[in-house]
């Protein structure tokens, strides 16, 4: 008994001694007993170069406040000019999602591939919306999905839910990506597109706060046509919007 207690105490103390200090994080501040340098505008030049049509302000030896009071203008491309040499790349593939041939009662699945790449400027958001539900030239519409609402599992523009019921019809989407909110990623979970025609706001389905990254996502569209749906050609527009993570 005493032996067990002794070993347990040795184990706890040993573990505590090894792990007592929390891991140190690398801060960008430089300091000693007599000074502390904090990240600010440590500028290198003081002149601004102008050429038509571009204008470049290189901040050497002056703070941004000094430049502004002297010239009345301060132009920066992102945090401490981190965005000036940076770009946001956005790829969507394909440009048309063709659902034909369609058979009533049989679901059709189609994939759209998204790639976002940024540079030194951190973060981005990708939003998705549709101009209207799938609509024919005569105004007939294929409804947006409500998922398995018949089994008390309804979905909405802002909440995915299970969609497996054979009697649940409409158009919806599912997203698979590491940079997507978890509720998008669940298997067989879908939601309808937000519609500009219904004054709904686009939904963020892909997001990151990191810099120098290349993220991808697969947006899977599901179209399940009701046998009562009028035969016609239905079309809509899906709008993918990429914004830097300001």
């Amino acid at each position: 008994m005493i032996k067990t207690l002794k070993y347990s105490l040795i184990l706890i103390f040993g573990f505590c001694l090894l792990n007592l200090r929390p891991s140190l994080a690398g801060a960008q501040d430089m300091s000693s007993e007599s000074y502390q340098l904090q990240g600010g505008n440590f500028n290198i030049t003081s002149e601004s170069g102008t050429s038509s049509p571009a204008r470049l302000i290189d901040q050497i030896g002056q703070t941004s406040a000094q430049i502004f009071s002297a010239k009345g203008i301060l132009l920066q491309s992102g945090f401490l000019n981190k965005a000036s040499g940076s770009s946001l790349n956005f790829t969507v593939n394909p440009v048309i999602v063709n659902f034909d041939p369609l058979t009533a009662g049989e679901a059709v699945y189609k994939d759209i591939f998204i790639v976002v790449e940024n540079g030194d400027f951190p973060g981005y958001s990708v939003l998705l919306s549709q101009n209207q539900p799938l609509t024919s030239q005569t105004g007939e519409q294929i409804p947006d999905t409500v998922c398995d609402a018949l089994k008390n599992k309804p979905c909405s523009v802002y909440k995915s839910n299970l969609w497996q019921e054979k009697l649940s019809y409409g158009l919806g989407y599912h997203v698979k990506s590491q940079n997507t909110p978890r509720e998008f990623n669940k298997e067989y979970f879908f939601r309808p597109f937000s519609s500009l025609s219904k004054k709904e706001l686009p939904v963020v389905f892909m997001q990151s706060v990191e810099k120098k990254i290349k993220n991808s996502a697969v947006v899977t569209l599901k179209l399940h046509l009701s046998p009562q749906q009028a035969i016609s050609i239905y079309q809509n527009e899906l709008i993918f919007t990429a914004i830097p993570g300001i």
Partner: protein
Amino acid sequence: MKYNKTVLLNLLICIILGKFAPAARAQSLSLSLTPPLTEVMIKPGKAISQTFTLINNGDDTLIKAEFKTLNENGNLSDQEEKIIPWLEIASPSLVAEPFLFKKGEQLKLVVNIHPPADTPQQDYYQSLAFITLPVAGRHTQSNISQILVSPILISVTESGLPKSAKIAKFNFPSIIDSFDSLNIDLVLKNTGRAFFHINGQLLLKGLIGRAKYPIIPRIHLSGQEREILLDSPQTKRISGFFLGKYSLIADFALDEGSIKIVEEKVFFALPWKLLVILTVIIIFSLAWNKYRTNPK
């Protein structure tokens, strides 16, 4: 033998055709925009220009450029009346109308910013949006459109707009297990009239050591309430082994550091899960010893 030769010849033709045939692929939209963000501080009556570069890395597409407003959360807004008239595309002049943007082509676009002398002194959150036009077809189909946005944040001021902020939320558990991570819910509200970058760190002080966790210097627009995130893979979590009493200090500066935001909160860490397991082991050991010495 003849049959074998035919099979080999067919195989060779297939390999050669497969090697040199162009890969079949669907059309794609792929745009690259520089710079992704522009910040301007300008006095009324002054003028400045900014050059944007757009590259088409995808297939030929119809495209147009237009200004859109941003709301206080940095998202696109439909309020066309808020598009400021002194933000203009100087060249090329026809990009507001759809034009064919060919594969591999590069577009240099110059935007003039020239607030008149009587412009109200405040922040204006605008953006330059490049919008591709969808391709029509004769099937039941969804046509894809792509919008790539570059925000333009403008402060019109004679001598700088007042900046202020307050911590709207600073939550984490008061007691945690020593082996658990500390989940932090930290939100800052911009209560001033101008946008700012938030700089600084979370400072963790324990009985023995201290550690700094730098934050991501994100932009907070005027009126915006936004989460503060750590510049690490776990943006809202501090991992490690904790024991005893700790202070977590939120220590931030707005922009270049003249305005400071500081708030401190305390939590306690105990290895209670380990203690529970050890207690159970000890109880079982005692019971086992008792059973061994006296099996009946």
